[in-house]
C-alpha cells in the first residue's frame, strides 16, 4: 500500500510541473473591414478620452472603465482583474468602428472585442471634432477564439479630472512595457515592446542597459544568456563575455526579436513614440560612460525637435553611484537615484526612486518636491497597493509591470 501511495505521490508531483502557458491571441478583423475606414484626427481622439460607465457587460470589466487614445490605439482600462481592451479604429460615413482584443493582466484570459459609435450616439460629433458628452460605445466581446457575441456597452460618464489633465504623473512600464512572464507577445527590453507600451497607458519606460565585451551598450536585464529571456542559442554564459556582433547575430529574444542596442532603443523612443520619460537602469557599472554619452546626444536631439523627453541615468546601487559621482560633470547629467536622500542631493539627481515596500513616505516625497526634485516608486504590481499609492501617495510616477492597472486608477482620480 505504501508503495502505491508513494508512486502516486511521485507521479502527481511530476505531472503537476508545467511551464507551458497558453495565451490565445484572438483573430481580429478577419475580413479587414477597418481598411475601408478613415483614421480619426487627433482632435477627434481627444474628445473620446474619459471615464465611462459600463451599461452592459459589467461581468467582464466591472462597472466603470477608462477610455483613452494612446498614439494609434484606443485603450480601455478597467479595475477588474486588470482587464483592458486595445482597439484599432476608423470611421465610415458618420459611424466610428473599432476592432481589437481584451485581456486580463492578472491571468491569461483574453478574447476578441469590437465596438461602434453610432452617428447619433456621439459618432457624428467626434468625427467633426465637436465636443460631446453623449458618447456610447456599443460592442461585443468573446472568449479565446470564440465569436465575440457577448454584449458590452460603455456610456460616457465624465472627462478626466483637472488634477489628471494638468498633472504630469508618469505611468512607468518595467523593462520597456512588462516582463516576459506577462505573456504580452513581445519580449521585455525589446524595440517591439517599447513600440506597444503606450497602448497600456504608459508615459515612460524603464529599460536595462548593459555593455558588450567590445563596448556597445544594449538592452538586457540578466547577467547571462538564459531561457527566461532568450530562445535557445549556440552561445551561453555571462552576457559580458560576448561582442555586440556575436550577441546580435546569435541571440534571439524570447519572442523572436533581436537584442536592441541602447542607441536603437533611445532613437526609437525619440522618433517613434510619445513617451516622455526613460529610466535607464544601469545593470553594469562599465556601461555608465556609454549611457551618459548617448543620453546627452539623444536629449540634444530631443531639444532640437521640441520634444518633451527626459532620460534619467539610473543609480540603483552603491557601485554605480560611486562611478557616477566620479564622472566629470556628473552634476549636469540627468539622473535618478535609488539610494538615500543625501545621495540624491550629492549626485544632483533630478529623481529619487524608492522601493514601494517603504510605504508612501509622504514627508520624504514632499521634501524632494520642495527641493525641485521628483519622486518615483518601484516596482508596484499588486492592484490594491497601486490604488493605495495613487490615492494616498504624492509620487510623480510609479513603476509597474501592469501599467494598465495603474492607468485605470490614475485616470479615474
Amino acid at each position, binding site marked *: 500500500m505504501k*508503495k502505491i501511495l*508513494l*508512486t502516486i505521490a*511521485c*507521479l502527481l508531483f*511530476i*505531472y503537476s510541473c508545467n*511551464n*507551458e502557458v497558453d495565451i490565445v491571441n484572438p483573430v481580429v478583423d478577419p475580413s479587414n473591414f477597418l481598411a475601408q475606414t478613415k483614421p480619426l484626427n487627433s482632435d477627434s481622439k481627444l474628445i473620446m478620452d474619459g471615464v465611462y460607465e459600463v451599461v452592459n457587460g459589467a461581468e467582464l470589466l466591472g462597472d466603470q472603465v477608462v477610455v483613452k487614445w494612446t498614439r494609434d490605439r484606443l485603450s480601455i482600462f478597467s479595475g477588474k482583474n486588470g482587464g483592458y481592451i486595445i482597439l484599432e479604429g476608423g470611421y465610415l460615413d458618420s459611424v466610428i468602428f473599432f476592432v481589437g482584443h481584451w485581456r486580463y493582466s492578472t491571468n491569461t484570459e483574453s478574447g476578441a472585442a469590437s465596438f461602434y459609435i453610432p452617428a447619433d450616439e456621439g459618432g457624428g460629433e467626434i468625427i467633426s471634432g465637436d465636443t460631446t458628452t453623449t458618447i456610447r460605445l456599443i460592442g461585443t466581446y468573446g472568449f479565446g477564439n470564440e465569436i465575440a457575441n457577448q454584449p458590452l456597452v460603455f456610456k460616457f460618464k465624465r472627462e478626466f479630472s483637472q488634477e489628471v489633465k494638468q498633472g504630469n504623473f508618469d505611468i512607468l512600464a518595467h523593462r520597456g512595457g512588462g516582463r516576459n512572464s506577462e505573456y504580452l507577445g513581445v519580449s521585455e527590453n525589446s524595440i517591439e515592446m517599447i513600440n506597444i507600451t503606450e497602448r497600456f497607458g504608459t508615459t515612460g519606460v524603464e529599460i536595462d542597459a548593459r555593455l558588450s*565585451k*567590445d563596448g556597445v551598450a544594449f538592452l538586457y536585464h540578466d547577467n*547571462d544568456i*538564459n*531561457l527566461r529571456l532568450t530562445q*535557445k*542559442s*549556440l*552561445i*551561453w*554564459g*555571462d552576457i559580458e*563575455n*560576448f*561582442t555586440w*556582433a*556575436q550577441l*546580435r*547575430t*546569435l541571440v534571439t529574444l524570447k519572442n523572436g526579436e533581436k537584442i536592441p542596442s541602447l542607441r536603437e532603443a533611445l532613437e526609437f523612443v525619440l522618433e517613434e513614440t510619445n513617451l516622455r520619460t526613460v529610466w535607464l537602469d544601469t545593470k553594469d557599472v562599465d556601461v555608465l560612460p556609454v549611457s551618459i554619452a548617448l543620453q546627452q546626444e539623444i536629449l540634444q536631439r530631443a531639444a532640437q525637435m521640441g520634444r518633451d523627453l527626459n532620460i534619467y541615468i539610473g543609480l540603483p546601487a552603491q557601485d554605480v553611484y560611486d562611478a557616477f559621482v566620479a564622472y566629470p560633470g556628473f552634476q549636469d547629467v540627468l539622473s535618478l537615484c535609488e539610494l538615500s536622500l543625501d545621495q540624491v542631493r550629492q549626485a544632483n539627481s533630478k529623481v529619487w526612486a524608492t522601493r514601494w515596500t517603504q510605504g508612501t513616505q509622504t514627508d520624504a516625497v514632499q521634501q524632494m518636491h520642495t527641493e525641485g526634485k521628483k519622486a518615483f516608486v518601484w516596482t508596484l504590481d499588486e492592484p490594491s497597493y497601486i490604488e493605495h499609492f495613487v490615492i494616498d501617495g504624492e509620487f510623480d510616477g510609479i513603476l509597474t509591470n501592469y501599467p494598465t492597472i495603474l492607468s485605470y486608477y490614475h485616470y479615474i482620480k
Partner: protein
Amino acid sequence: MKLLKTILTLLIFVTCTSFGQIVDNTYSLTAEFGAGYSRYFTTMDYNDLNKNGFSGTVRVMWNPEHLLSVGIETGYQYLYSINISNYDTEFGTTEFSASMYTVPIFLMFSMKITPNLRFNAGTGMYLLFNSGNMFDDKLESNQISIGGHFGVSYLYPINKKISVGGELLYSYFSKIQDQTVALQFVLTYDLINY
C-alpha cells in the same frame, strides 16, 4: 519535457517495485569507467549542427550490504559543434564556429535490479563550456547548470575485481533544457573490499 516525464515515470515504477534487501555483508569501493557515443537532442534548428560526439564517465561507488550503492561521478560529455564558413550577418560575412561540452559533478545512486543489471541515477551540477569564433573574436564562456541523468547498465564479471559491460545513459541539462542519450562501454574495478 514530455520525454523527461516519461523517464521519471519509468524510474518511479522501477524503484518502487525493487527491494533493498541484504545480499551479503561485504562492503566495497568500486571505480567505474565509461566511454562511448553521445547524441545531443535539441530544438535548435541549425542544419550544420553536429550533435554526435564522445561521452565519458568516471565514478567511484560505495557498495554496502544493500542493493543500493552511492557514489560520485565526473566525466565529459560532448553536446554540439558547428562550423559555418560563410555566415552572412548584418555585420558582414564571417567564419563561425561554436561548440559546447559539459563536465558533470554528480552524486550517483545505483540500484541492482538483477545481479548483472543496474539502474543508475544521478544529480548535481554540470559545468558547461562554450567556445568558438566569430568575426575573429573568440567565443569563450562557461556556466553551471543543474541537471541529472538516468541509465541502465549491464555488467558481466570477468574476475573477482573486474567487470565489463555497457550503459545506456540519458542526461538532462536544465539551464539549456536539452538532453543527450549516450551508449557507453563500462569497465568497473573493485578498489577495496572489506
